[in-house]
């Protein structure tokens, strides 16, 4: 079986041949399986957002390939268009893309562009709206009347309604308060469970990545520094730190305790760490 998405030796250079030339990605390879939740973490820079715009073919690689179900999305025009819909891309601050008169119409924009029937478009839009917790009342409102958090949800619903096989979100919780963050992550998880969709989310919060992803891809200076399960990645906390990337506070507490001669297993959420510590106490 081929993977849902494969990225092979992807390199991207902005403005090649000019004084502004900048390598944003260099030889990036990874693959995403069915219904996986992956977090892409990395420091500042254009690497992360450049990467995700390759996944649905908006950007053209300087070299390397992006494959969906084993087929190069740039091998013909039809596949490139199909990639737009197979990979649903939610940009950073997506509320800025709202433009329709009503919330419902805005959510329907994507499915309509896919050429779906009116009934199917409406069914999907209603379902997506419900998943992100929008009420019946909200649907007939202008998107510009809503609060910031609600706008964000409308924008995400606009992509969910396209029912992509792979959902990609660029910092979906940026600028939200803790409650808003929790809600958005909850909606995405619900959608994923229901549709068995694979999800990639870009974040610079190690805490968010540790709590929500099954697999992590750590980007550093445009190339992949490490990838694996959160356990595998956070075991290498020292390496992450020396690359200037943070680790969850909990990991720091555990490595501090280890340096004091207390033997503890790796844990990266407060709950898991608490049970590791309780276990250690019972053992003694």
């Amino acid at each position: 079986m081929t993977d849902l998405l494969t990225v092979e030796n992807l390199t991207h250079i902005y403005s090649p041949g000019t004084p502004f030339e900048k390598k944003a990605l260099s030889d990036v390879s990874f693959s995403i399986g069915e219904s996986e939740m992956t977090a892409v973490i990395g420091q500042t820079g254009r690497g992360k957002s450049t990467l995700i715009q390759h996944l649905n073919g908006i950007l053209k690689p300087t070299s390397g390939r992006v494959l969906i179900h084993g087929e190069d999305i740039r091998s013909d025009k039809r596949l490139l268009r199909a990639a737009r819909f197979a990979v649903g891309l939610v940009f950073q601050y997506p509320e800025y893309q709202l433009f329709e008169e009503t919330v419902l119409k805005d959510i329907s924009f994507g499915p309509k562009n896919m050429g779906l029937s009116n009934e199917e478009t409406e069914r999907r839009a209603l379902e997506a709206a419900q998943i992100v917790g929008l009420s019946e009342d909200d649907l007939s409102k202008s998107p510009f009347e809503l609060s910031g958090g609600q706008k964000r949800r409308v924008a995400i619903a606009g992509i969910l309604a396209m029912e992509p096989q792979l959902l990609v979100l660029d910092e979906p919780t940026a600028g939200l308060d803790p409650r808003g963050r929790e809600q958005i992550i909850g909606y995405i998880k619900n959608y994923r469970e229901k549709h068995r969709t694979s999800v990639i989310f870009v974040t610079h919060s190690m805490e968010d990545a540790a709590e929500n992803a099954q697999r992590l891809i750590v980007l550093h200076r445009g190339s992949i520094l490490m990838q694996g399960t959160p356990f595998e990645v956070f075991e290498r906390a020292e390496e992450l730190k020396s690359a200037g990337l943070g680790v969850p506070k909990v990991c720091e507490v555990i490595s501090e305790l280890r340096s004091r001669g207390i033997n503890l297993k790796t844990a990266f959420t407060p709950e898991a760490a608490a049970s590791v510590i309780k276990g250690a106490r019972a053992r003694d």
Partner: protein
Amino acid sequence: MIEFKNVSFAYEEGAKNVLSDIDLEIKKGECVAVLGHNGCGKSTLAKLMNGILIPTAGDVFVNGLSTRDEERLFDIRRAAGMVFQNSDNQIVSSIVEEDVAFACENLGMESAEIRKRVDEALSAVDMLEYRTHAPHLLSGGQKQRVAIAGVLAMEPQALILDEPTAMLDPRGRREVLDTVLGLNREKGMTVVLITHHMDEAALCSRVVVMHEGRIALTGTPKEVFSQVEKMRELSLDVPQTVKLLYELDSSLDLTALSVKECADQIEKYLRG
């Protein structure tokens, strides 16, 4: 320095109050974090502090001047400088130093005096070497520091920052936070930091928690964040170190904000 006396505020007459019965005093040299989730009124609180908004009831005083006094509004704004969330929308000029000079130019200062203040303000935020750069080519953290310098050039006594780090990545956040805390510690600048990041609030000397237009909690970071249940009720987070101790045993001393303090507690728990 800044005083709220029984302040209420509604955006329109007859509309629901965004803020109700706020009594708050911010003393000279303090570093106060205002926490709360979106829509709790914390941005409105900030805008009342330099007369962008005028209370519906009650009074706000800056250096003893009421923000209702239109004659003195200029002095109030000069004393209480304001920095906003989106640095892109507060930078006026396409050259860093000319932007920083904007307030001084409005004050009608001599060119030599402006030069001096611009250089001082840019050094204070560690951006002097970018003086002739174009703001749109800077990183988010750098742009926000330019915006701070633009306010510092007025030589205000207080700096009010309305979610200055909300749009920044971790590195930018650290840059801005270090700058602001440095100004407070080294130059005695009064700082009001509006934020929803618990770890940022933990670095301030006092935390004010807002909930539905009222002050729900106030105290030192340790006093506030150790009340894990109360914070959950307000659907706010606590730092991971506190959460870990709370999960371990809620009867532990929960005032550990740093990694070291947290490790100390756990060591005691394991060996005790």
